[in-house]
């Protein structure tokens, strides 16, 4: 092969080679598409993250994380409370905790001590209900601390719900569905009137809120799946699934099945998901009707081949002046390519070719 061949000619020669070898170019392997949208500049990225990343110091002031419309911290005091008296908040959107992260957090607490106290409110039965610190309390249990520093605040249920929902720490590593749940809860319980306000409460952009809430547009069976597996899919999947739903209005069952398969294959890419659904929904290729005798012409239109299809036979008549051997090779290659795309039930192949 000459190095001087043009790139296009070279690629074409490769393709021809592969066709002879019976290999479809992308056959078998799925490849994820690269993004094509406009990318932000570095400066834009920093600007967009500035208010939350650069200017806000990491440890919030004891009262600041509940500095919501209803700021209600009275008599907050920091004390060490017994770990066993602490109970989870019923409003905490998180449903699962990453063991490795908890261990790392525990190690950090062991090494450096507790960076900041948890926030709790005292219940009538003498227990402390968490407002923020669900991961810290678990880490403390892991490393066997008997007590933990906590700020005790007085809040009624509604205030505690809001404070728990918006607590920054609450949102570390939450899946999109869990976020959506929190945002929806805030809207349903009138803690916020619109998505913009939700964004303000949870210190994230309105577009992020609306992205997460998109998940609630998914068909009910998928939402039920998400209740069990909150990190099954993210917003980007939801978008793709909704597109599928609108394309295949009758295909809900297949779509749900495809999503369900992600429980075992969490890395399933969007394109793969789509092809699963398409495979299940696209009607089987209709049987080709008996081909009528037809002719295939050359560039100038004079007949080169005439083809007849019988019950189980294709008969190709080749006109004089055509390279019979090459025609045979090409036909075989085309059939081979076709054969790669189908699968016979069990019966033997019965397709025959005559030249």
């Amino acid at each position: 092969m000459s190095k001087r061949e043009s790139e296009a000619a070279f690629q074409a020669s490769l393709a021809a080679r592969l066709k002879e070898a019976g290999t479809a170019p992308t056959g078998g392997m799925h490849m994820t598409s690269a993004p094509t949208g406009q990318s932000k500049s570095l400066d834009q990225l920093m600007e967009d993250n500035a208010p939350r990343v650069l200017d806000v110091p990491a440890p919030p002031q004891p009262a600041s994380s509940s500095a919501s419309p209803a700021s209600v911290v009275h008599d907050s005091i920091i004390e060490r409370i017994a770990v066993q008296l602490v109970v989870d908040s019923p409003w905490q959107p998180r449903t699962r905790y990453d063991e490795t992260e908890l261990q790392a957090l525990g190690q950090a607490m062991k090494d450096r001590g507790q960076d900041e106290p948890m926030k709790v409110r005292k219940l009538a039965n003498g227990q402390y209900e968490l407002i923020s610190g669900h991961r810290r309390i678990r880490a403390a249990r892991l490393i066997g601390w008997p007590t933990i520093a906590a700020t005790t605040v007085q809040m009624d249920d509604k205030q505690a719900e809001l404070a728990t929902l918006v607590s920054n720490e609450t949102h570390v590593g939450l899946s999109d569905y869990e976020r959506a749940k929190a945002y929806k809860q805030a809207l349903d319980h009138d803690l916020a009137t619109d998505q913009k306000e939700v964004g303000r409460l949870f210190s994230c952009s309105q577009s992020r809120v609306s992205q997460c809430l998109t998940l609630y547009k998914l068909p009910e069976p998928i939402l039920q799946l998400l209740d069990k597996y909150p990190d099954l899919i993210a917003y980007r999947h939801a978008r793709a699934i909704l597109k599928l739903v609108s394309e295949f209005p009758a295909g809900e069952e297949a779509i749900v099945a495809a999503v369900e398969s992600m429980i075992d294959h969490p890395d399933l890419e969007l394109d793969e998901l789509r092809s699963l659904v398409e495979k299940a929904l696209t009607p089987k290729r209709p049987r080709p009707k008996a081909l009528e005798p037809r002719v295939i012409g050359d560039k100038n239109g004079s007949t080169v081949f005439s083809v007849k299809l019988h019950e189980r036979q294709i008969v190709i008549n080749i006109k004089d002046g055509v390279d019979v051997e090459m025609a045979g090779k090409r036909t075989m290659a085309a059939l081979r390519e076709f054969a790669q795309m189908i699968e016979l039930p069990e019966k033997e192949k019965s397709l025959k070719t005559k030249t």
Partner: protein
Amino acid sequence: MIRKHKQFKVQAVATLLGISVDQVRRDSDEAGIEVERQAGSGPKTRLFSVENIFDLAAFRAKKHGTRFTRTKIGTIYAPKGGVGKTTATSNIGVTLALLGLRVLSCDLDFQANLTISYGYDPELTHDEAENENIPLDTCVDYHLGHLLPQWQNGQTLTLADVIKKPFGENGPHLIPSEVTLDRLEALFTVDAIMNKKPDLAIAKFLADGLSGKNKGIDLSQYDVILFDAPPAKNQTTRGALLASDFVVAPVSMEKYSTKSVSYLAGVLGEMEETHGKYPQLMILGNFYDMTRVRVAAQVIALTSKYPKAWLDKQVSTSEEFKKVLDDDENLPLVLARPSSAAAGEIRAVTKAILEKMETL
């Protein structure tokens, strides 16, 4: 430097700079670069040092005004080892500098292969260097971590404290690496748990260094900043990718690493989703043997799926790479063997990357 004092004749310099022998003579005279002459009674041929060549490249760039208006940031990354990432970074870095661009390379792998390829020894201690009479500059004391606020040792270092200049002022500069760079990843992990967005750490480092906000670290002097990322799928790598304008993914045709490009495309997709920013993908066919059908199959798969990302120029399988490693010359291949076919291919690849870079 510990490297043997390799000297280049005019012909080699002309090849490296892509200009004629006469042009080399004229420009080096005009620039007033002091070049050694061959000793003895024969013709007094000029013998250029590596530094001379980069000085000449810089002079020519100044004369022709080839600098970028904005610093371009790139990462060389593939989630698979042994596909030629470090070889690509060191050679592309050198080649860009030979084109007269000011290049800063940054080694993100604690195994420090890039650092070693530029002639440093990350395991050498100061005592050992003194005992064995090796220049102290060969030791690696600092790395990228020392320039980030996450590194809580109280020391504030400037860029000048950290960078190495393996080929002199006008050659590519290097933020080296050594084994403790691994700790940066641990610090990032703690940041992640505490919701401090470690993925933005490198972006912030670059933004502050480019805007002049960080006085001790002036990155605006560079035309190109290149990160050599480890094959690990970690926070450091993601941080570098997020901050980058482009990512060059070497794909070793020998090793079926096509799947790794697909993975990378997925990572970029997530980045676009989360941050609205992602680097432009460039795929570099590496160790390429176009006579093999298996290779051809991969090429077709990649070019049809990523037509825009595929670089038209490739690096072929070549024994030269291995020879250079054995030689212990501590020079990247383009400098060690300027006239080899492999070096020519690297220059062509670098120009292809440069063309894409200029559109970013």
